[in-house]
């Protein structure tokens, strides 16, 4: 509003209590919607993201609850029932060796494919979630500290650049082959590999999060509410926890989704190259790797774990895409 005389005229003419028709509210105003409500409304519009959320929930529940319903030991050798085909093969090939005791068939040692998929999914998802959380923790900590404390900024960011310059996959392979033995002794064959793979994936994937968080923290810490908080004597730790972290939550959540996807793929890649979990412990990557040599006769053994990995990663990627759209107030509402 300017203070020009025209405005005064308008104000004077509309000073009467009844507004013109176009400005009248026919119904009471809707109560203001909360931020989380807005985010959810925007998120729901993204079909891919809804599919991602649905599928991720489904696969998580399947690998968590599935083994209690389908109580077959995935490592049990049943050599009489080896090389069985999935039950649906009977639809077009009546001579195929199928049976309801092995709904998705069995591998060359007679291990049940359904039980292996469920157990393998458990391993892959566990590694994915743990590595993602650890990497977020490192990335957020480095990012917040670098952004908030100016003295540590250049040191921490140089370290981040250094890590970004490392060749990731060769180093992953290197570290796994080097530290496999001692960790197996310390935590047992499966626990040791779990700790090793999670740590290595986290150590090599925290850098993007750290960069994004640092950038956001640098901008937010100059805002008035941080100044206000500091002026009433809030300590640094509390400012970070109460004022900075909630404000950088959305980029962190987006990079969490991307991190989960990369972690699952990296774990499967390591298993595929034969440096992952011990050979009797099923993971999706290892099932795929074992099946590749027999894929001409049993293509489903490649397809099942491959589709499982791809769909999970696809749904996580879509989830991240939807989250990014929903959490960005500039896009929201369009």
């Amino acid at each position, binding site marked *: 509003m300017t203070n020009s005389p025209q405005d005064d005229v308008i104000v004077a003419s509309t000073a009467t209590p009844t507004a013109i028709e176009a400005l009248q509210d026919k119904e009471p105003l809707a109560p203001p919607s909360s931020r989380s409500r807005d985010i959810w409304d925007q998120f729901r519009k993204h079909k*891919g993201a809804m599919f991602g959320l649905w599928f991720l929930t489904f696969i998580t529940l399947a690998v968590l609850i599935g083994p209690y319903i389908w109580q077959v030991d995935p490592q049990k050798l049943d050599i009489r029932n080896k090389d069985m085909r999935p039950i649906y093969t009977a639809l077009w090939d009546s001579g195929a060796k199928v049976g309801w005791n092995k709904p998705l068939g069995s591998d060359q040692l007679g291990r049940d494919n359904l039980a292996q998929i469920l157990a393998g999914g458990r391993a892959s998802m566990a590694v994915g979630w743990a590595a993602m959380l650890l990497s977020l923790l490192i990335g957020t900590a480095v990012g917040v500290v670098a952004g908030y404390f100016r003295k540590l900024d250049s040191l921490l960011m140089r370290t981040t650049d250094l890590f970004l310059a*490392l060749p990731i996959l060769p180093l992953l*392979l*290197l570290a796994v082959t080097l530290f496999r033995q001692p960790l197996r002794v310390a935590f047992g064959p499966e626990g040791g590999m779990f700790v090793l793979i999670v740590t290595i994936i986290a150590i090599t994937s925290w850098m993007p999060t750290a960069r994004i968080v640092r950038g956001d923290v640098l901008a937010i810490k100059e805002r008035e509410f941080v100044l206000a908080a500091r002026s009433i004597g809030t300590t640094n730790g509390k400012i970070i926890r109460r004022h900075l972290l909630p404000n950088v939550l959305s980029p962190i959540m987006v990079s969490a989704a991307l991190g989960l996807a990369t972690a699952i793929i990296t774990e499967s890649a390591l298993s595929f*190259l034969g440096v992952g979990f011990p050979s009797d412990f099923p993971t999706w990557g290892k099932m795929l790797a074992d099946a590749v040599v027999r*894929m001409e006769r049993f293509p489903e053994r490649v397809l099942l774990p491959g589709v499982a990995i791809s769909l999970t*990663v*696809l749904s996580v*990627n879509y989830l991240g895409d939807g989250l990014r759209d929903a959490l960005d107030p500039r896009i929201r509402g369009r």
Partner: protein
Amino acid sequence: MLAFATRRLILSIPTLIFISFIIFMLLQLAPGDPMAQVPLTVPPEVKEKMRQALGLGEPPLVQYWKWLVQVFWIEPQVLIDHIFGTSFAAGDLRVISWQTRSPVMEIVIQRIPQTLWVVGVAYVVAILIALPIGVYSAYRQYSVFDQAGTFVTMIGFSIPPFFTGPLLIVIFSVQLGWFPSIYDTTHVVNDWESFKVQLQQMVMPVMVLAFQITAQLSRYMRASMLDNLNQDYVRTARAKGLSEAVVVNVHVLRNSMIPVVTVIALGIPSIFGGAIITESVFKVNGIGQLLLTALFANDLPMVMTLTFIFAVLIVLFNLIADVLYGLLDPRIRYD
């Protein structure tokens, strides 16, 4: 710009030395002994001499220094000798592989063409496909083409190469029998027939790699085009009566290419290092496969040198990307 490039180049030397130091010290922790295969009948003093010949048995720092000298001083001399026929490096000890007992660099040089052929072609193919897709998706945002492109790129992000590889092998070499499933690196191209065979065996690995790279690049291209299409200069160009083709393909495309070119430059190191999985799926006898076999065979000098080469490439192309960004975009000033 020159000052910036020089400063970055000088700064990258300590970075690289630090990285190589970390890798070297990591490798020092490695279990296993290159002498483990030597028969027990060999007397211990002979074994000790063999150990010395491999550069072992000295403190790690001395070993590291020797490795540095070999890589930065002796290997360039060997290269000069090779080119000009001189003999600077005669008699000097080079980095020796524990597997083959021959210089690491010679094996690397043997393997590089295979990797370059497959991965380099894949990169070029991916760029050629990704850029038009990105441009058109952005120009017709939210159209059917754009939605389909988004879906395909999402799939490209999500399906790992160790799944697409076997899938293509099942479809194209087992069921249809069009392409061989194994890349034959000894194949010599000397006439039209052998060139066709070479093309056939390259199709599948190139497809797998190009699919992933296309997915990433077309996303970048689309985002960058979208940023530029709403700018004022585009309206100006249209207002002065330029045809739509000129506006999009000359004005907008040139400006949108700036970030994309740097992304392309940043991706080049992965041409050398990122194809480990694809190379092992299609049995391409390249650098990634060399690293994998060296790791499994506990061939530490080979692993060390290869990892270091990857690190050098990453640092170098980061630098090139930064310089390119400054050269292409006059708004960016580093000084």
